[in-house]
């Protein structure tokens, strides 16, 4: 069976692009207001809550959901499991756009966005944030190189595409190292808050927890992004490949759960599981949604082999894991109660994101979706379909080795 590649993606002047453009416009206006009048007028951030929704969603969630790129690059280039080739380009594109979104969001959140490059000349070696900044900047460059062949093929500069492909290996290895570093460092970012972060989450092993969960998030994102784009662009879905990825998820989740509960037992903090009120509920919610449910779902062969099952499982997994990122960076962080010593004009004990704050993130996210759509339409992102086996559209058991 030959795939019908003449099908035009439904991406003309549809209703979705219009909505996305409108959301981007709103975010742009809000960002301009923020640059003119400061962060205070448009957000609920205060001296008691210096970091809020932008950090939890754009930085913590944004980086985590971009981890598919290094997973696929590592699988295809380093482990040389070539059958995953069809998933490589969409994953690298997702990661590339994801990191650009993180960078753009940080430029809104930073007090001095024009000084972001100071990180490269004034380095403070003890700062986890420096490591993340440097890693994200370098990894963006690596992703640009990894994605460049697609652009060159798109504009028919085959020679350049070939050239980059020839020297891709060092960049792939660098990319995996950088990703390992900053995916785990996002956890290290909270290490300096042992007195502020709830003990259910604060542990010296936060970096390892973050890296382990980032792997499941990356796999979940690949499944989600393949499923959605196959629906939207009416192209084939590589169920047999996604099935293999889904098979890995329960294993990683088991390791993750073992680490989480093992650490709590080791630190003698198991009691907090039931005695911390809202914190206990948040912890169990994150475990049940992000670990237990996807573990069960992806352990069932029938679920893994159906397009709907894969999509449902991935969405549940991602919701739970994103809740984890929000818990660690926001819900479970308690800043010292400033009622005593801060005058009310300088503090705000209760933080809740304002509408403009959320709209900025929504706008940046819309831009990401828009860019993905445009790239998928004009660049050979899904180009491998014609030689990725005839099995691409029909779910069949594993092939090859």
């Amino acid at each position: 069976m030959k795939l019908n590649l003449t099908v035009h993606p439904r991406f003309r002047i549809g209703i979705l692009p219009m909505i996305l453009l409108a959301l981007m416009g709103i975010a742009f206006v809000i960002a301009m207001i923020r640059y003119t009048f400061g962060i205070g007028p448009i957000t609920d951030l205060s001296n008691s809550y210096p970091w809020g929704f932008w950090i939890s969603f754009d930085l913590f969630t944004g980086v985590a959901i971009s981890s598919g790129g290094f997973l696929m690059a590592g699988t295809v280039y380093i482990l040389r499991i070539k059958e995953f080739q069809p998933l490589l380009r969409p994953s690298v594109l997702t990661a590339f756009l994801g990191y650009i979104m993180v960078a753009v969001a940080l430029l809104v959140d930073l007090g001095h966005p024009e000084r972001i490059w100071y990180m490269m000349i004034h380095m403070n070696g003890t700062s986890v944030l420096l490591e993340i900044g440097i890693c994200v900047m370098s990894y963006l460059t690596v992703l640009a190189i990894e994605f460049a062949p697609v652009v060159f093929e798109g504009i028919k500069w085959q020679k350049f595409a070939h050239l980059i492909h020839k020297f891709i290996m060092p960049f792939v290895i660098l990319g995996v190292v950088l990703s390992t570093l900053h995916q785990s460092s996002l956890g290290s970012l909270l290490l300096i808050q042992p007195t502020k972060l709830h003990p259910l989450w604060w542990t010296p092993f936060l970096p390892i927890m973050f890296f382990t969960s980032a792997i499941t998030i990356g796999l979940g994102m690949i499944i989600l992004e393949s499923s959605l784009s196959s629906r939207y662009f009416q192209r084939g879905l590589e169920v047999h490949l996604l099935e293999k990825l889904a098979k890995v998820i329960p294993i990683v989740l088991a390791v993750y759960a073992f680490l989480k509960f093992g650490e709590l037992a080791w630190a003698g903090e198991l009691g907090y599981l039931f005695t911390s009120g809202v914190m206990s509920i948040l912890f169990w919610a994150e475990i049940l949604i992000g670990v237990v449910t996807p573990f069960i779902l992806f352990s069932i062969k029938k679920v893994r082999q159906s397009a709907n099952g894969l999509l449902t499982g991935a969405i549940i997994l991602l919701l739970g894991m994103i809740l984890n990122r929000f818990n660690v960076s926001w819900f479970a962080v308690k800043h010292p109660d400033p009622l005593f010593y801060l005058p009310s004009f300088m503090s705000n004990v209760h933080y809740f994101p304002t509408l403009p704050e959320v709209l900025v993130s929504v706008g940046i996210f819309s831009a990401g979706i828009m860019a993905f759509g445009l790239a998928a339409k004009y660049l050979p992102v899904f180009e491998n379909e014609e030689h990725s086996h005839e099995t691409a559209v029909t779910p069949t058991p594993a092939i090859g080795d």
Partner: protein
Amino acid sequence: MIEIKHKAYLFDATRCIDCRACMVACSVENSIPMDKTRIWVAGVGVKGEFPNLDRATMVYHCMHCEHPDCMSACPVGAYHKRDDGPVIYNPDVCIGCRYCMNACPFGVPHFDYDKGIIAGAFIDKCTFCPQRVDNGLEPACVATCPTDALEYGEREDMIKAAHARIAAHPERYIDHVYGEFENGGTSYLILSHVPFSELGLPAIPEKPVNEVSEKVMEMTIPFAIGWGAVLTAITAGIALYDKKKDTQKPAELDEKVEAPK
């Protein structure tokens, strides 16, 4: 613990009369606008039943930690700890990430939320008045305090004085000098007659808060190099193995999916 030879404040909550002259003195000395301040005086209100009434006030500013967490956290090194005690913030390199505010266990640094990109939004906090200290004067808040609730001197002497005061009036004080060991020691020492938590001071362990994160950061570069080497070895190994397999069984080639050229 090693004695650190440098200056420190000593605040005695039993002596504070809540006059807030220190706040005014600080604002005047450092030209702080009226709606901002680097020093806060907070009262916990009147407690107890008549006639046994009690009240306490607390003067709160930067603790000038011996192992400053703001300094450890700042990605661009905008903070530094001077040898004679003060933790100084340098706005010229600050990128406004506000990680120092997250890192500080006392919630001291504060940020200009009402300033745009042209006005310049910076962090602000107590500077220990280096412009006065360097000229042999006491910090403005100390110099102005009418009841000697705030004092200033060698850290060693201040700790000794604090313990002497507790020993002389054990019924008046809680037997603890807050800041002697908290967060690895601070240059702002506090004596109180009510529990420190009632003054709004957090319970901080004696180990510096940044200890774990700094240890993890030390491992980063060795880990990166090691992990890079391991990955290179794996890559080379698998590539070699594949090559060998391909030459041995050329028939298998057809089954493999070729990389896009």
